[in-house]
């Protein structure tokens, strides 16, 4: 029989006895007192035993001890039914509270249910099921469909669909094939995979994420620190007030001692700050867990709290607002076929690994036949010169065209423009630029709706490009042509402007801007999955590269803080109200028990809302 069930049975028996004693008036005085005492012992024995143990341990201000004092006190002043009823009510409340705590503990556990229990490692031709901790780098593991990926590695055999939702919050499965990197914590949906392990369990993604979430609650928020300070003083103060209430009025006013004692006893019932001590950390835990489920890792309760106060978001352009991948946007041929122009350009760039060259080659798609290329010359600061299919091809910037006296047409497009000349005749130009992410515009709009007053973009890119991008997505301020160190100084200037309680967040890809991530009030790294540097430097890590996760994170942080505030105001409010009413003799022990356990239960239920992030609220 479970602990809770036993308690429930005790409560029922005790309650029946109480009703009997109250209803049957004809009972002998001592018999009815006997029934009250029996009923009290059945329901309250454990509380009294705990109280005695705690006194032996010199724990005076323990809840059990105070409960015992107040009920025994009620017995002494002849309020038998009240004494028993309060104990019953208290136990019912405790039961509810335990239930709520267990339920939230379970939900939190399921949020973190990404820990792999075993790994199927192939040793000496046989499959052994071992603890992921015991697998070494370069060993081959097998992952069947439906199993969790236990360690990070590279696929050496098989292909499959992966459910990455526990890491990224992304519900669409991802296709993986031989040679692809695979991260622990994902679930293999369809095929059988063989994976060469590249990281031990300690270093693997799943373990890092779990450690991060578990340790997040050790970095306490201001609200939590307030609650711990409050809890430290609250109980002693209430107990001192209770003693004063029992002693002073009878002495000073010559009032009835038993009446004031009864009032003092109600104070003791309300002396536990439990509602706050449980519900506030629970809300933060829930918020952090709920964010993790969306692929947003928050490294501390303090950051979740601070994020709700952000009013300025500074973003790096490349990798945050744009994809950071260069793509051919436009081909403008001059007296030549479009496909032919691209082909010759791609061939000329054969040797180069520059992002621009890579984008040209990937746009061409076909395999380059090396026998058709001769005399490739890299012309530093200008471009390249090569003989392709017997033709002299020049690919490069305006200066290159001028140098060879080629009559060109200047392009007015935004982006990087590559001019091409074939056999010293102008052949047209190709525009290459970084693409804006699909969700950038809607995300910036959502941020504004959520109270972000200023969005700022920093970039090393040219002014024209920066302005077009920022106009397209609706950014308020742009600073362009910045060197990496300039970005950091610009951020410092922005931080200086910010006064009061408002905060500045910086969003970057986490690879090049670690100093900025560290310097800002809140550093947010995008695309953190698999990148240790990003996880290290940032306060909040967005696992995917979706900018839309930023409004989601703002939403979660605001919701969590709202719940925390509601609970603080509600719990303290009800307690203070019942204390005042109790001192005036208006409220009795009944209200006091509600102010104690009833408030706890309500606060816990409210706190659990922080865990759920409603997808239908998804703004982007």
């Amino acid at each position, binding site marked *: 029989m479970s602990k809770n069930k036993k308690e429930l049975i005790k409560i029922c028996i005790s309650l029946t006895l109480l009703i009997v004693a109250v209803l049957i008036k004809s009972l002998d005085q001592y018999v009815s007192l006997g029934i009250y005492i029996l009923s009290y012992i059945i329901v309250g024995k454990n509380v009294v035993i705990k109280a005695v143990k705690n006194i032996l341990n010199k724990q005076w201000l323990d809840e059990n001890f105070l409960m015992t004092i107040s009920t025994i006190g009620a017995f002494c002043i002849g309020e038998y039914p009240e004494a028993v009823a309060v104990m019953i009510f208290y136990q019912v409340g405790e039961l509810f509270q335990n239930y709520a705590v267990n339920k*939230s503990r379970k939900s*939190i556990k399921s949020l973190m249910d990404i820990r792999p229990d075993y790994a199927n490692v192939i040793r000496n031709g046989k499959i052994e099921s071992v603890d992921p901790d015991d697998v070494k780098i370069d060993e081959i593991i097998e992952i069947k469909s439906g199993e969790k990926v236990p360690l990070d590695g590279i696929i050496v055999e098989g292909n499959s669909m992966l459910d990455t939702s526990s890491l990224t919050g992304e519900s669409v499965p991802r296709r993986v094939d031989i040679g692809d990197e695979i991260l622990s914590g994902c679930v293999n949906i369809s095929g059988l995979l063989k994976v060469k392990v590249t990281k031990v369990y300690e270093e693997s993604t799943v373990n890092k994420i779990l450690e991060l979430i578990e340790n997040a*609650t*050790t970095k306490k928020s201001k609200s939590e620190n307030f609650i*711990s300070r409050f*809890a430290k003083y609250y109980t002693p103060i209430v107990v001192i007030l209770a003693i004063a209430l029992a002693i002073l009025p009878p002495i000073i006013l010559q009032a009835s001692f038993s009446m004031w004692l009864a009032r003092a006893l109600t104070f003791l019932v309300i002396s536990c700050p439990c509602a706050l*001590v449980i519900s506030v*950390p629970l809300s933060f*835990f829930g918020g952090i867990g709920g964010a993790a489920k969306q692929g947003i890792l928050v490294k501390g309760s303090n950051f979740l709290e601070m994020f709700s106060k952000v009013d300025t978001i500074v973003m790096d352009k490349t990798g945050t607002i744009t994809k950071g991948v260069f793509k051919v946007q436009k081909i403008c041929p001059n007296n030549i076929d479009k496909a032919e122009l691209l082909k010759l350009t791609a061939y000329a760039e054969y040797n180069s690994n520059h992002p621009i060259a890579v984008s040209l080659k990937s746009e061409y798609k076909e395999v380059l036949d090396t026998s058709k290329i001769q005399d490739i010359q890299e012309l530093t600061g200008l471009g390249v010169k090569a003989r392709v299919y017997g033709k002299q091809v020049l690919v490069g910037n305006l200066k290159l065209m001028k140098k060879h006296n080629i009559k060109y047409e200047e392009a007015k497009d935004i982006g990087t423009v590559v001019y091409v000349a074939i056999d010293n005749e102008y052949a047209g130009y190709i525009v290459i630029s970084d693409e804006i992410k699909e969700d950038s515009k809607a995300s910036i709009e959502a941020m504004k709706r959520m109270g972000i007053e200023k969005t700022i973009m920093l970039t090393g890119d040219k002014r024209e490009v920066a302005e077009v991008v920022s106009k397209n997505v609706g950014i308020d301020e742009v600073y362009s042509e910045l060197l990496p160190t300039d970005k950091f100084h610009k951020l410092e200037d922005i931080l200086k402007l910010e006064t009061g309680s408002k905060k500045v967040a910086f969003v970057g890809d986490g690879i090049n801007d670690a100093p900025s991530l560290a310097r800002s009030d809140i550093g947010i790294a995008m695309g953190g999955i698999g990148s240790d540097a990003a996880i290290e430097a940032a306060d909040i890590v967005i696992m995917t590269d979706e900018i839309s996760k930023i409004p989601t994170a703002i939403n979660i942080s605001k919701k969590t803080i709202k719940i925390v505030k509601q609970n603080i105001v509600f719990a303290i409010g009800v307690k203070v109200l019942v204390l005042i009413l109790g001192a005036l003799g208006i409220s009795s022990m009944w209200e006091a028990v509600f102010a104690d356990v009833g408030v706890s239960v309500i606060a816990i239920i409210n706190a659990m809302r922080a865990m759920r992030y409603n997808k239908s609220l998804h703004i982007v």
Partner: protein
Amino acid sequence: MKVKYILEDLDCANCAAKMEEEISKLDGVNSVNVSFISTKMTLELAEENVDEILSKVEKIVKKIEPDVKLRKV
């Protein structure tokens, strides 16, 4: 040095806070976190006298909530 415990049957949130407060005052304990929700205690200790410190930690836990069982992770 990091030591983690699971505190089975940790029922009282205020007790968890009290444990954290008292344990943090021990010599040799650099930091301590008692999470009522995950029922985990995480200790960051100095390298010396580890056994002695841990027995003190255990005593404090038992003193504040006698029913709690400590299990090292």
